[in-house]
């Protein structure tokens, strides 16, 4: 049976002046996949991600979600069905945690009667106690705030999660635990996730599949294991080499002791 892919990106082009941020990018993602988009700064990975929920409008090409062109829906309706988590977190400072988490159901016109229970359930998913519901964003640590950010993105039971450097601003310990916690959620809830990161090690450890973008083109698309085993493209090879060498040196440190 020839079913269309869950997410299909075809021939995307986006120019910023003379510079091509995306140069004929095509990609398909199956339901339930966890795909990491990696690449150096300015490689076009954020532009690609934002083309999917139309925070960026590409100059050419198209994006289909569940077989439908994303341009067929009003941008706001499209985005309410897609979870979006980004480095800036962007909790609304004038709303408490519960109001932040409940914002998308509220936009969708959900019955307020279910609010308390649903908020508690979502906070539980991201491992926050239920009494956090009444806190204001300014009372949260960075890690707690991003957990709320994830809970907010999950509130409308999205078909797709788009994450743009979601843990980029957090300290390494928080970053690691939050990354693994999210990977668990992805598996438990059967989510489909596209995550932009410039941290190759994070990508290798969390994702099912890694897409490497350099200069607006896809230069590699493989599983972490295949990528770690080696690659023909010297630039991609150089990117992968960094965490591998670091891992080896860390292992050597352990042996020497």
């Amino acid at each position, binding site marked *: 049976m020839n079913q269309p892919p869950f997410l299909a990106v075809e021939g995307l082009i986006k120019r910023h002046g003379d510079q091509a941020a995306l140069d004929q990018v095509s990609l398909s993602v199956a339901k339930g996949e966890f795909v990491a988009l990696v690449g150096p700064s300015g490689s076009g990975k954020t532009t690609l991600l934002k083309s999917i*929920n139309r925070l960026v409008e590409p100059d050419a090409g198209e994006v289909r979600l569940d077989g439908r062109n994303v341009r067929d829906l009003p941008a*706001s309706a499209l*985005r309410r069905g897609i979870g979006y988590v980004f480095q800036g977190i*962007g909790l609304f400072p004038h709303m408490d945690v519960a109001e932040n988490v409940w914002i998308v159901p509220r936009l969708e016109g959900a019955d307020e009667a279910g609010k308390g229970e649903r908020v508690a359930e979502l906070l539980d998913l991201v491992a926050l106690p239920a009494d956090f519901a009444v806190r204001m964003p300014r009372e949260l640590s960075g890690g707690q705030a991003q957990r709320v950010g994830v809970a907010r993105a999950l509130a409308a039971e999205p078909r797709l999660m788009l994450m743009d450097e979601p843990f980029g601003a957090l300290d390494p310990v928080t970053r690691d635990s939050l990354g693994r916690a999210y990977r668990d959620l992805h598996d438990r809830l059967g989510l489909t996730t596209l995550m932009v990161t410039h941290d190759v090690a994070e990508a290798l450890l969390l994702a099912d599949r890694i897409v490497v973008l350099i200069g607006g083109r896809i230069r590699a698309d493989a599983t972490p294991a295949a990528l770690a085993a080696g690659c023909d493209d010297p630039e991609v090879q150089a990117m992968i080499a960094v965490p591998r060498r670091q891992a080896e040196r860390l292992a050597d440190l352990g042996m020497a002791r």
Partner: protein
Amino acid sequence: MNPAIAEALAELPDLVRAHLLLSGAAVAIGVAVGLPLAIWAAGNARARTPLLGFAGLVQTIPALALLALFYPMLLILGRATGLAIPALGFLPALIALSLYALLPILRNGIAALQGVDPGAIEAADGIGMTRRQRLFMVEMPLGAPVILAGIRTAAVWTIGAATLATTVGQPSLGNLIFSGLQTENWLRVLVGCAAAAVLALAVDGLLALVESGLKRRSRRRILLGLTTLAAALALAFLPLSGRPGGGGTIVVGAKNFSEQYILASAIERRLRAAGFRTERRDNLGSTVAYQALAAGDIDVYVDYSGTLWTNILGRADIPLPEEMRAVLARELERRDHVLVMGALGFENAYALAMRRDRAQALGVRSLDDLGRVAPRLGLGADLEFLTRPEWRSVSSRYGLSFGAQRSFSPTFMYRAVADGSSDVITAFSSDGRIAALDLVILADPRRALPSYDALLLVTSRHARDARLIGALRPLIGAIPVERMRQANLMVDRDADKRTPAEAASWLDPDADRR
């Protein structure tokens, strides 16, 4: 209690109400116009600069001039469109003050919306808010404290500037300040200033309460602040709207000096005795007053033949007094259907005056004598004299060229000649202070100064109103200059001051006996 304070306090409730209504409406319009403009301009860099530039420009125009400018503008607009646009009173004051309120609301509104955390904006877009939802659920709530700070600034400015609405015939707390300044009734000035300050502080305090409510997410504070404000405005509005229509009310105009207040009071007394309801428009500018009468914004007032001759008819020649009166009666009737009822019996002419001791020491009796010593002397003029044709006429005929020239409001002009800071002033012949300060009026042998007979003028609508004309006729020819001077002095002197109303009842005691 001191009758002056009692009188000021008696006028206070109505003036506070009018003041609050005017400034409340102006700020409301400022918000209703400024906020949408700010929202538009915050997202539109090309509109932003010219818009802020315009609002800034308006702000650089002195409030007094801005108010005065709207009078001729509305007059022209009314003529061009044929609509009955009131050019005096509430409307011009409201427009000018609304424009004035615009800048802080606009500037803070734009700053507030541009200052919203970009993370919150990205989140709002990313989770699927529409532009409208983003504006009302994120940008406005986050910008609210800064927006409100702008509204607070606008409210305080407007309540202050609304005192100037008096000059375009809109009653406000400025009535107390302006008339108090003219009659040197400092208690009256003080009452007006204090009331305006208390009003501004109270409104500012209530808005501060709302602002802190927004910050602390306290619905109680927001509601308390807003409902108190709304109640105050409603209170200001209700009695005015409940008042009977202006149809049967005669509006008496007065310019901005004591004699005009006294005469307006005398006219009011006569009209009331005849059963009319009356209203006052005080502190009208010299040309504004006549145009207001021609347009029907005021119904009756006293003006001076020489003023009308030059300002309205634009004539520079100086005929005999009787001829001037006859031409005026004919021309004003033809131009504006204004009725010149007749002369009250005295002149309030421009005359150059000096302190008697100074004049004797210099040997000056007439303007001819003055021409010889003028370069060594300083002239103190009222605010308009130096731009009037009389000045050109008198200075050229007598070759007057003073060592120094300064302009004062009339009150301070008399102070200046009394304390010697000016040697010669442009006195008014009916002024009580001429006798009180022992000034001498310099003779005008070459007839350079025209006559200024006080004339009673009636607007076209009432020109054939026999009851009104009959009520006012006893004033014609009934006020000799000595009596007018005495009445003026009662109001202007420092000791045993009387109010203009008291002076009017002294001047025309018969009005009560019918």
